[in-house]
């Protein structure tokens, strides 16, 4: 009884198999030509869209960095040209021929490459190239096999034909079809007026990586079959139209919507803003270590996985911040990528509407506290007085906002597009890549005396009325050291007048009385040698003094940045509790809580006011035009060793009683002293502020 039932099971399985066999016959014997054409035609493609980065704007909405949409050309090696496929498919057909032809796949490919090299001068000439004989005097058997294979599957042997002549065959190739990829790229070089070979070199580079056996085989597969390699950015509209409407003439070349990062104020604020670029190997490694996927490495079939991963995914062609604010604010500025699933025909044209779309989400905009117009004026003020290296920073006393920011020399995006320029500036001692406001620390000179004054008064080593007579040197037994030439000899000076006239001997004495440790402690309270707490890339904290309190007391032997000295001025203007510096609107840096008595602040301020108003003050000359304004300043001068040039400083605030702005100006490598170089520039800036921003800064 069981055997008939076993037979029934067998019959059922046989019937199922026959059913499948019938379907296979239908697909592979009856309909196969249709499917063969479809195999080289309709397919689904997922196209990735990079997300636009957020804008960086100033306090008035002026754009400092923004994305502009561009069309970028990329290429896919496996589609670019069928040379390798043709060689691989012909090799087994020709194997066993009795003629001395290269039958191996590698030799076939090499012979095609040699033919390519010979024909290369004619590529991109704009004329159609004739059919080129490739293998002549091929025996009848092999030639027939080739002819039959080509006739039955022409899509597998593009550009190949076999022509019989008597008992022999000659195999021809059509260069316009077989080398269509290179011809297209060389044509693109001509259209874009690029140097011949400039774009094709990128294809060669990709080919070399595919053939590099030291690279993992899976990686090489990726490079050849899936990776879209960058070809050229910003394809002009006409070429975009041409490639889109006639993609057969541009095989393997894909157009993508991308974003170019533009700095409208370039090169102004170049070092502060930084730049963007393609992710470096280190950046990609960082992604991998945080398990953030690189989305174009995933073989996506639909958008489900993409939508789940995209909040923390990256694309290897995304532009990322590489320096400056672009880098520090990367998490905020970078958006969320999008993608769409579409059907493409054999000409890689879209068929119908996209099947599924995930729109890219732009990054967040960042608003800086800066006033770009003011900052530009500050930079112009420096350049109009032939200052090539310098910095100006202006802070709003009420909340610490950095409203003015200028750094010379200015450097914009051009340096990242010119390798020679990049190399020469990298090797230059002028610190092109540093923002001089926050990233370039130098000796502050006599501006540091304000810090010494506060510290000495607070420590009780001096009172405001103590008189010290300055004979021009600290120790008569050592006449060559610790001198003072800032005023006539023999003056009796108290704290106020010592600050006003910037007497070195007075402050040498303070240095001796305080000692180094107390000096440093006092300076740290005012924010020196510590970061501002703002999002500034490559901020320098300067170098603390380690010896010689006497020299330290007059601002020598250590370094600070203009931003730090502006913070000192801000602290004095605030008379104590000092707001953190705001570079990004609404985000305060580190606030200061110095413990100095308010009386001591007033004493120091008196000295700084006297420097402007009283005869003999270092900023009191009428030519400086500062006496018109209600302000308190301290000048500083540091001679650059071995030269007749100086680093000139000026710090201060205005107005005196209810300050609105605090500032620091540093002109480096100039032939003038602090007051001479910086005071007129300050007058120009204050005048501008009155005229354009309505500040009341006059007496």
């Amino acid at each position, binding site marked *: 009884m069981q055997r008939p039932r076993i037979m029934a099971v067998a019959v059922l399985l046989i019937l199922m198999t026959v059913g*499948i066999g019938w*379907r*296979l016959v239908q697909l592979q014997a009856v309909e*196969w030509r249709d499917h063969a054409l479809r*195999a080289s035609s309709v397919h689904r493609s997922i196209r990735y869209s990079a997300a636009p980065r957020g804008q960086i704007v100033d306090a008035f909405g002026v754009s400092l960095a923004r994305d502009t949409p561009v069309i970028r050309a990329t290429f896919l090696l496996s589609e670019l040209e069928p040379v390798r496929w043709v060689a691989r498919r012909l090799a087994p057909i020709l194997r066993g021929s009795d003629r001395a032809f290269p039958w191996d796949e590698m030799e076939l490919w090499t012979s095609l490459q040699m033919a390519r090299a010979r024909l290369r001068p004619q590529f991109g000439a704009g004329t159609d190239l004739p059919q080129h004989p490739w293998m002549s005097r091929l025996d009848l058997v092999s030639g027939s096999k080739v002819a039959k294979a080509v006739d039955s599957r022409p899509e597998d042997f593009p550009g190949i034909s076999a022509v019989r002549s008597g008992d022999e065959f000659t195999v021809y190739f059509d260069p316009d079809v077989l080398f269509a990829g290179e011809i297209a790229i060389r044509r693109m070089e001509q259209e874009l007026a690029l140097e011949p070979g400039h774009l094709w070199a990128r294809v060669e580079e990709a080919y070399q990586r595919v053939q590099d056996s030291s690279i993992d085989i899976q990686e090489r597969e990726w490079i050849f*079959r899936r990776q879209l390699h960058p070809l050229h950015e910003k394809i002009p509209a006409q070429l975009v139209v041409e490639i889109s409407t006639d993609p057969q003439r541009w095989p393997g070349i894909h157009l993508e919507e991308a974003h170019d990062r533009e700095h409208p104020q370039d090169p102004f604020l170049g070092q502060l803003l930084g730049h963007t670029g393609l992710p470096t190997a280190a950046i990609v490694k960082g992604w991998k270590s945080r398990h953030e996927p690189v989305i174009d490495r995933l073989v996506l079939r639909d958008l489900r996985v993409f939508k789940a991963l995209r909040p923390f995914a990256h694309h290897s062609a995304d532009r990322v911040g590489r320096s400056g604010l672009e880098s520090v604010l990367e998490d905020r500025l970078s958006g969320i990528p999008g993608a769409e699933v579409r059907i493409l025909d054999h000409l890689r044209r879209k068929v119908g509407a996209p099947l599924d779309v995930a729109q890219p989400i732009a990054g967040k905009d960042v608003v800086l506290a800066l006033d770009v117009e003011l900052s530009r004026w500050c930079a112009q003020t420096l350049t109009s007085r032939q200052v090539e290296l310098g910095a100006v920073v202006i802070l709003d006393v009420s909340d610490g906002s950095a409203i003015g920011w200028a750094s010379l020399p200015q450097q914009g995006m051009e340096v990242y597009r010119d390798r020679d320029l990049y190399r020469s500036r990298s090797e230059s001692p002028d610190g092109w890549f540093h923002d001089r406001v926050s990233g370039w620390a130098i000796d502050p000179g006599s501006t540091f005396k304000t810090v010494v004054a506060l510290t000495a008064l607070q420590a009780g080593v001096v009172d405001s009325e103590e008189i010290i007579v300055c004979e021009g040197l600290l120790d008569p037994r050592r006449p060559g050291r610790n001198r003072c030439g800032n005023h006539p000899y023999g003056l009796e000076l108290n704290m106020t007048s010592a600050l006003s006239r910037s007497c070195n001997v007075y402050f040498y004495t303070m240095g001796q009385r305080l000692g180094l440790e107390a000096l440093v402690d006092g300076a740290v309270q005012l924010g020196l040698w510590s970061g501002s707490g703002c999002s500034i890339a490559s901020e320098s904290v300067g170098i603390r003094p380690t010896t010689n309190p006497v020299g330290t007391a007059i601002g020598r032997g250590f370094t600070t940045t203009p931003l730090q000295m502006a913070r000192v001025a801000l602290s004095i203007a605030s008379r104590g509790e000092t707001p953190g510096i705001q570079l990004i609107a609404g985000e305060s840096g580190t606030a200061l809580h110095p413990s100095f008595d308010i009386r001591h602040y007033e004493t120091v301020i008196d000295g700084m006011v006297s420097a402007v108003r009283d005869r003999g003050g270092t900023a009191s000359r009428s030519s400086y035009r500062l006496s018109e304004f209600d302000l308190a300043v301290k000048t500083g001068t540091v001679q650059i060793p071995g030269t007749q040039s100086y680093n000139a400083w000026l710090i201060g605030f205005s107005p005196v009683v209810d300050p609105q702005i605090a500032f620091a100006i540093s002109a480096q490598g100039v032939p003038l002293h602090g007051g001479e170089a910086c005071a007129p520039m300050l007058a120009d800036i204050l005048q501008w502020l009155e005229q354009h921003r309505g500040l009341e800064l006059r007496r």
Partner: protein
Amino acid sequence: MIQEVGNWFRDWRSGWAGPASLLVLASLWLLLIGTIFVYSAADGPEGGFPGAYSESHMKKILVGIVGLLIVSMIPPKRIESFSVLFYGGTLVLLVLLLVWKGFEGGVVRWIRIGGFGMQPSELAKISTVMVIATALRPGKKLQRWSDLIKLTLVAVIPFALIASQPDLSTALILVPTVAAMIWVAGIEWKKMATLSMILIVLAGMSWPTMPNYQQQRIISYLEIGSVAQDFAGGYQVTQSIIAMGSGGPTGKGLHLGSHHDLGYLPEDHNDFIFSVIGEEWGLVGTISVLIGTLVLVLTILGVAWSCRDPFGRLVSVGLAAQIGCQACINQAVTVGLVPVTGLPLPLISYGGTSIVTTLLAIGIVISIARKPIEVVHPDGLQKGVSPVQHRPIRARVSKQQA
């Protein structure tokens, strides 16, 4: 025990003529095709042979062949004695997986210990066949519904555990397997029809509980002709049909299947490897796989035909139905006849546990084929094929044989 194993080894050299050899040859043929196309689909020729996938595949084949040889040594009686233990063991593994899934969430189908991974569901397929064959040994005619229900419960428990992973396609294979076994065991027509109706109703009722991707596969199957094939199931099958059809009568040649090579065919080295064979070897290749599988399955049924012992017969039927149905379903998916299931092609698709367990199953059948069951026959025949064909035979092993 050691002496027993020694006896097995001594007896192992006999009984290879006939079905056992045919099973080995058919298996080797399918394994060879599988190795060639896993290499073509997953590795590609650039890296040389073997590539990472094909090397892993061959290692698993080696493990499977060793397992086949060992299992083929063991007498069917011994195999039967382990059935319940084996079944219980696989149930424990399936429960452990579910407990793990409770902690981790998501899809949990593998048990990984160190670098070694295993799918208990594959083992459960064999253990269920063995335990059902053991349950049906007493020759029950399944006349009572209570017997039938008890028997289906034995199959429902692993079905439910596997389906909860979720791995519905593997679980569903148990259905034709058990159906074939109880059919051959002698269930009445009416009961079979009733059971089938109940199954269809239950399948319809389970639709809301199916995961979304499984529902979508069925929907896509029904919409296969539409252009908007935006779900994985529809896209995969469309690309499979294109790849298969474009191979034509003789195929594009080994490693020259551009459609799967350019990434248009997903899962080309496991579920859709049949499409790769169709693209590269054409109709010749696909028909040869069909014939190879049919030979394997019919040989197993032939072993069932000639086997006297109910256990051996039913195990053979169950394994034949399992391997045959799985192969047919995989092939039918690739040509668009049934919805996508995720079932691998036996002995061909890349996938370690499937290869090893299928070879173990064939090893069991070889064991059955090599040892025509010892029967107590009226004329005193101890071994060999009994001329008595229609009476249920109780096999008793003599003390000498034990």
